[in-house]
């Protein structure tokens, strides 16, 4: 039984609530090389007129990013301990670990029920993040079912792979913050890798990296000096920048220098992995802080990965579609 996760709403008297951030996130992989995400997030002091509740629903089908970002106010949203919902979409958490995600944004409509295949990782204790902090809880591999439609075209059904996490904390978009994150799910069998580290905005000062490896019921966490991270190459400019109005405001971020290749290497005792991810397409999400005048730029990088290593006495290899994020 997976303990229930909860939305971490701040107390009414919390003096840091202006910088409150909280989101429920689901990635879905498939059919074929499709990579999608549904994310519903709260930005700022709940119930304040400045508070924003944002729905992001995107699907990359190999030729284009479908969906959009819809920004609304707290008054338009339904936020509880187990869900964040807006008229455009919602993500809800069930006590057994199931994640229910639905969205209807632009040409993309989906309704997914994702059940965990492996246990959730314990929530990470809040870590320093810019002038604030960030917390994180991960369900690295789920099995998702449900319809996905692009316009009038229904994508082929069947079970898809999914990843879920929940982030919360206190910071302002536009602060000197960044992160690298990636979800890599073996498409043809069991196995998943999750990578994460916080950085400064320029990705010059990096926090301790974390790699979570799951396969065949075994699990291993690699951190700190046991992990090597290498970015190289340059990806093509973002194929879409959202919201469109923010993209128009930030023409200077039209061609960011986003690396195209990520290589991870992790080693601890006899266990370890080597992973290489290659970017295929980038979508840029422009995040405006509702309180300060700052903006951050989150790059959703869809692509493909291959990995191999050892875990619990056995060798393994994995491959499949993957998504990496780079925040700056």
């Amino acid at each position, binding site marked *: 039984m997976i303990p229930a996760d909860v939305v971490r709403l701040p107390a009414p008297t919390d003096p840091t609530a202006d910088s409150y951030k909280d989101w429920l996130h689901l990635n879905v992989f498939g059919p074929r090389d499709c990579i999608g995400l549904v994310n519903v997030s709260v930005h700022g002091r709940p119930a304040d007129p400045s508070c924003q509740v944002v729905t992001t629903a995107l699907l990359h089908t190999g030729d284009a990013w479908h969906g959009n970002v819809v920004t609304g*106010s707290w008054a338009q949203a339904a936020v509880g301990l187990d869900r964040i*919902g807006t*008229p455009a979409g919602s993500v809800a958490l069930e006590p057994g670990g199931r994640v229910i995600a639905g969205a209807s944004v632009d040409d993309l409509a989906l309704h997914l029920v994702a059940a965990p295949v492996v246990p959730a990782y314990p929530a990470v204790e809040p870590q320093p993040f810019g002038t604030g902090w960030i917390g994180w809880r991960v369900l690295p591999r789920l099995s998702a079912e449900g319809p996905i439609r692009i316009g009038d075209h229904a994508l082929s059904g069947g079970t898809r792979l999914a990843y879920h996490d929940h982030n919360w904390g206190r910071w302002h978009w536009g602060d000197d913050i960044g992160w690298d994150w990636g979800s890599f799910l073996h498409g043809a069998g069991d196995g998943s890798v999750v990578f994460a580290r916080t950085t400064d905005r320029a990705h010059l000062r990096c926090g301790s990296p974390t790699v979570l490896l799951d396969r065949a019921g075994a699990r291993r966490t690699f951190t700190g000096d046991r992990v090597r991270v290498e970015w190289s190459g340059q990806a093509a400019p973002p194929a879409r920048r959202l919201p469109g109005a923010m993209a128009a405001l930030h023409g200077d971020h039209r061609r960011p220098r986003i690396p195209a290749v990520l290589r991870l290497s992790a080693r601890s005792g006899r266990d370890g992995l080597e992973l290489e991810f290659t970017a295929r397409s980038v979508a840029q999400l422009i995040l405006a802080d509702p309180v300060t005048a700052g903006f951050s730029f989150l790059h959703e990088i869809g692509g493909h990965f291959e990995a191999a290593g050892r875990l619990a006495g056995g060798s393994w290899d994995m491959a499949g579609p993957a998504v990496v994020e780079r925040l700056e």
Partner: protein
Amino acid sequence: MSAGTGPGTGLGTSPDQNVRGPDRSLLAYISELVSRLGAGDPAAADRLREVVGDRRARIGLDDVTVLVAFDRAGGLRIVEVTDPDGPAGAAVDGTGSTTHPVVLDLLAGRREVADAVLDGDIEIRGHADAVAALFSAVDILLEAAARLPALRELADEYVAAHRRAPSPSDLPPPSTTRRGWPPDLHDAVEEALLYRWGLRHRPPSPSV
């Protein structure tokens, strides 16, 4: 909690797909834009008036054209022009024109402003300071829209009113009017000056 239509937990439609607001004209949209800016962010509205100053602009969207200016008291003066080339359409400091499909593509993040300009789908004309003022005014409105729900709602209303049916590969059609960069200049003295200062890599035409 929610005062709206509730969370989208299924395959329902988002509000901008099935709620069509009042059928506003271009004049009404611009008036409402400035009004909501003033109500939500008076400082930004003051910056907008300061940037625009006493300039007059002609704004065109599809086949509708309006003249826009601020009066001395800071009030918005806007009038629809039926003959842009006639006397009422003259004496402006700058002009800007585009179409509904281009605006929709920009708001959907499917197209960049720079690309639309180079494709000839957004036309901006005027003296350099007037063009700069026009872009600064747009920046002020966009930045305010990031934080003012009332401006976002107006944009959603516009999208709902003018949205076209999306398709699975809804990409902008290839342009046949893409201009090169840098654009050809018609002022030979300007060409020579920019080349001499290293701001233009093509030498001026032989006639200079």
